[in-house]
């Protein structure tokens, strides 16, 4: 393979892996923000929690990788239900400022709690034997874990999209995102729907956090450090949209990887400038509702 083509393939591959992680984490945020209009800055906390659960189970208790991922998703989903019932539900009709402050407060609390439980250092990710090393595809080889990440992500995304199109639950979600009042008047229990959707989104975020532990390091300040990227994916993709954030995640994943490789001095600049330009052109995001 020529150098340029090889570089392009590398960037595409790693960019896609990064995009998968970003999407899995952010899709829940997009749907819940679109449905309830709730500015949830603390969404990254669930991804962080998933990451901590996966790394703790693997590193300290030798739990098999797959099981750890499932545990992360389930426990995060359950935790999110508690937070939603206890706190978020009071602020749905509230001020934007209230929502920003509440979720900021939760981020701060999670930062301290994570430091207390797991310490300030980033958690190392000990990959299981079968996922370390490389996968040889003939023309070149790829890191096994990232390949697994891409395949896993693709499977989850497909399941998600199919689920939203084909199941009754999915139809209800799309109806509520489209027009909440109308959905209520048609008899959908939006309060319960929201809790379930929120749990699903948070569970996915936990899964994404765990899967992406070597891309986005698991440390106490995770929710703060990565907030901008999660919000960019949602804002650029379009609130309430399910495909929009995927496109946005792809753009950001590939662009970020590409620029880090080709123009490291520019760092994330181009992404931020691009975000501002896109939001200026389309304030509701690329696929947001008019």
């Amino acid at each position, binding site marked *: 393979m020529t150098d340029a083509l090889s570089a392009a393939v590398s960037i595409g591959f790693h960019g896609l892996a990064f995009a998968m992680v970003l999407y899995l984490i952010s899709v829940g945020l997009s749907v819940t923000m679109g449905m309830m209009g709730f500015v949830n800055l603390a969404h990254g906390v669930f991804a962080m929690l998933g990451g901590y659960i996966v790394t703790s189970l693997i590193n300290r208790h030798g739990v098999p990788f797959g099981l750890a991922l499932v545990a992360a998703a389930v426990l995060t989903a359950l935790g999110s239900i508690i937070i939603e019932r206890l706190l978020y539900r009071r602020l749905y009709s509230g001020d934007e400022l209230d929502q920003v402050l509440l979720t*900021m407060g939760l981020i701060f609390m999670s930062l301290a709690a994570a430091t207390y439980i797991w310490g300030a250092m980033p958690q190392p990710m000990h990959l299981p034997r079968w996922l370390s090393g490389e996968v040889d595809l003939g023309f070149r080889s790829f890191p096994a874990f990232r390949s697994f990440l891409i395949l896993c992500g693709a499977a989850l995304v497909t399941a998600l999209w199919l689920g939203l199109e084909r199941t009754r639950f999915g139809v209800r979600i799309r109806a509520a995102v489209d027009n909440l009042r109308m959905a209520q008047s048609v008899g959908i229990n939006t309060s319960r729907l929201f809790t379930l959707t929120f749990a699903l989104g948070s569970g996915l975020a936990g899964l994404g956090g765990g899967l992406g532990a070597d891309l986005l390091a698991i440390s106490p300040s995770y929710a703060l450090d990565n907030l901008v990227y999660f919000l960019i994916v949602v804002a650029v993709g379009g609130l309430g949209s399910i495909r929009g954030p995927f496109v946005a995640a792809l753009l950001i994943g590939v662009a970020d990887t590409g620029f880090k490789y080709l123009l490291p001095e520019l760092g994330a*600049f181009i992404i931020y400038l691009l975000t501002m330009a896109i939001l200026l052109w389309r304030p509701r995001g690329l696929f947001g509702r008019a």
Partner: protein
Amino acid sequence: MATEGLVRPGISAGNGATLAFARRHRLHPLEALPWVTAIAAFLLFPTYLPLGAQILATILFALSADLVLGYAGIVTLGHAAFFGTGAYTAGILAANGWGEPISGLLAGALASAAIGVVSGFIVLRTSGLALLMQTLVVATLLHEAANRASSITGGDDGLQGMQVWPIFGVFRFDLFGRTAFIYCFVVLFLCWWLARRIVHSPFGRSLTGIRENVLRMHAIGAPVMRRRLVIYTISAAFAGLAGALIAQTTGFVGLGFLSLDRSGTVLIMLIIGGVGRLYGAFIGVPLYMIAQDRFSEVAPVYWYFWIGLLMVLVVVSARGGIFGLVDRLRR
């Protein structure tokens, strides 16, 4: 008068309601309290003057955020952008041979105002989440820029080697923080006076209209974008002044000055006191910083837990901060 046809003449001149309304801007004796307290602190706590100076400068930062958030209703997560710009401007000048404090201060304000007007032009076209995002992206952009330009800014390690000259060539910045305290006091006082005038002016009243119902503001013919841009720029200048003050009085500027953390905590300090009341900053900032100072001797990182919890509790039950509580007790 334009509504002549509807008005029965001669009734309303000088009645109680209009008089009370017209006198809202008059100084109330309680408004002397912050200044009296500051002077008392200067005299009674001579060993805490450096902290005192920082508190005064941070009050200015929170006051600038109040103008934008409490009065114009613009929810921003990136106000540290202006604070940091002012700090780095003053700091870089002082670290590269120009340590004159007053001009450094003004340079900081000017730089921040410039960032304010340019970013405001882009950011203030939107509303809701898009606006919040844009403010966050601007601040993150600047943070990244400061990180990359480490030869000028010192990057991760922070700006080193600031040399601030004596004020007017006479008042040296001493180890006890006396000069710093008075310096910050005077700057805060002047800015407070300006902010107070703005808030009570017809312009300031129109900002509250923009906050309460922007749709209605458009319908009465107000140039909404222009007004928001003006207050955003003024607020940026004040935040820049605050940043420059901290830089000059502590001799250090770091990337944290531009961080999301900094933007978030200024909101928190403001909320504790109460938003949109002009004096929320004067209550919230000292409470926060003194509590943090005491706490940091015990267990610094757990401070975040308690402050986060306080935020959650304030939002859920004590919305309006201390001012809100006082209002409720009055009724």
